[in-house]
């Protein structure tokens, strides 16, 4: 069992090493459009954190929305 585990770990490391050699299919000089402000996921962190809090206090679902926790203010 331990031998199997060792083989799995070595195989995983080889895979990871291989990954680092993958040729990027979008070259750094082709990423200008992606670096613009309008393409940012996190343009206004304070505002987004607040809006996530507004939803989390009123909806049953939580998580995977980038919100920080703490308190409720929902009664």
């Amino acid at each position: 069992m331990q031998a199997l585990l060792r083989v799995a770990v070595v195989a995983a490391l080889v895979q990871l090493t291989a990954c680092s050699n993958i040729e990027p299919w979008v070259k750094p000089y082709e990423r200008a459009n992606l670096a613009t402000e309008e393409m940012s996921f996190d343009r206004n962190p304070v505002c987004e954190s607040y809006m996530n809090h507004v939803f989390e206090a009123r909806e049953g679902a939580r998580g995977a929305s980038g919100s920080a926790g703490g308190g409720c203010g929902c009664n």
Partner: protein
Amino acid sequence: MAQVLPDDRADVLYHSYDGGGVTINGPSLLARKKVTKDLSLSANYYVDSISSASIDVLSYASPYSEKRTEVSVGADYLLGDTILSAGFTSSDENDFKADTANFGVRQEIFGGLTSVSLGFAQGSDEIGQVTDPDFTRDADRRLYRMGVSQVVSKKFVMNLDFEAITDEGFLNNPYRQVRYETVGGSGFLWQPEIYPSTRTSSAFAVGGRYFLGEGSVVHGNARLYTDTWGIDAWNAKAGYTYIFRSKWLFDFSYRYYTQTAADFYSDLFPYVDAQNFLGRDKEISTFNDHSLRLDVTYDFPVEKWDFLKRGTLNLSYSYMLFSYDDFRNVLDGSPAGSEPLYDFNAGVVTLFVSVWF
């Protein structure tokens, strides 16, 4: 696209929520600064001033006002293609205190095309009751997060996020009540709600932004959610960002959310102590909500201030409509169980100034 620390910036924000008999407003202040080329520190101060005459409050209590203060500090450390993060948040109300510590790591791979992040947070809540100074209960929370950000093409980036949260302890609200039918009549009485002492939830989200042309971007995201209380939910959002004359940014978006009720939820229980667990919070009922949002950003000139690189004035407005499928308006006065279903709308405003230095 090597890993970089977040920009040095400061934000001063005013927020306001008004809906369903509840008004909440207050400031939020954020400052973030690189203290060395590898280390960025941040701090956030946030206040909710709450004035509530919600349907729950009017049904079995009296309107109240209270204040919640939240303070967060954080550090991000750049190590090659990796960013290590740690932070601490403390939230304080007169009857509720929550402390959360969080840790994260973000690693770039595939020549910067992919960014993988892992996060963990541990929180502890202390719940009190203003009407009973001797009442104290605890709850613990653990959060596990994994995310992938992927450059798909020269015009398209996407995010995948998974987050699992487990809670243990006193998870209900000490003031909230459930109602049950009185024997042989059309009336009802109230008793305190009883929630399970554990809850585990999983949420999976996918989002993307597509570059249409200079200053023009469409974006969207969707989330699936499930938990051990029986709540299943999903939401989706679509939006459009447009830059006008390089100084103005407009963002329009629409969001839809829907969920099923928790297994122990009922608007009207048949008799007192009808189940081991009893819940009538509208947040765990079956409902949906729609949100329309407009954000406007204006880049104002900063030449007068040498230490500033950029400054923006921002306004965000959201209109929300909540419609409940099994939560009735008991204030209507109709016989128990035949009241109209409840709904309400809300307006949310944030007004803020951001500066980069």
